[in-house]
């Protein structure tokens, strides 16, 4: 049986495909290793938002984030990650941060998966 977390992992692994982008984009879980070159994605589960009813966890749901670090203005990866989120998650764009030291644009989406 596939766990919900491994299902989420499989979904985000599609972001590494060259099917949609001209070059492969690395996708990491929790954090990126040293010497990682942008663009890259990092996803992480960090909370549970279960629906409780009748004194049980009637529907178990994970909450987490997926982040894109990119040097590219108007990166097409933004549209693709959001289409993937549309198809599989309840989600919202949490923040967009320009990191001045590195010139990286950091997008952060929060998702729920039940």
């Amino acid at each position, binding site marked *: 049986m596939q766990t919900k977390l491994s299902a989420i992992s499989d979904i985000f692994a599609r972001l590494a495909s060259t099917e949609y982008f001209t070059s492969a984009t690395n996708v990491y879980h929790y954090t990126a290793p040293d010497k990682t070159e942008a663009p890259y994605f990092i996803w992480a589960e960090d909370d549970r938002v279960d629906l409780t009813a009748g004194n049980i966890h009637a529907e178990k749901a994970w909450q987490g984030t997926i982040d894109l670090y990119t040097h590219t203005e108007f990166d097409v990866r933004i549209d693709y990650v959001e289409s993937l989120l549309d198809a599989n998650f309840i989600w919202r764009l949490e923040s967009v941060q320009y990191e001045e*030291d590195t010139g990286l644009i950091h997008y952060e989406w929060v998702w729920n998966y039940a």
Partner: protein
Amino acid sequence: MPNIKIEGFDDINNLITELAANGEGLIKTALYPASHITYEEARQKIEAMKNISDADRNGLLTSLYHSKMYTENGVVYEVIGFTGYNERGVPNIVVARSIESGHSTRDGKSNVQKHPFMRPAANHTKAQVIQKMQTVISQEVQKIQKG
């Protein structure tokens, strides 16, 4: 000819009129003690953080605040956030955001892992906040009814 008399409509009318006139004030009365539950949860998460300097932790703890409430389109808002600078001269909001969201390192060649604490604080206290608001509003409505 049977005769039915129902009483109490005047009281209900008076209550609705009072609530319509003072609804925003009622919500604000309930919002502060309710949001303070989330505030306290956030404080506990800051105190429990690992891999954070004393300066950053003290800055977050001392600058965590409730904003003044404001209303937009009939919705009352209050922000729980951070203000000012810590003893290292770094804005506390920048420290909070870097912990909540993670960030790249200065050379852009690696990544500092995120450790969300404000969003989980809100998630974990949502039910308590709703319950607290219901309790306070119920008490305030009873006060209005008693005149």
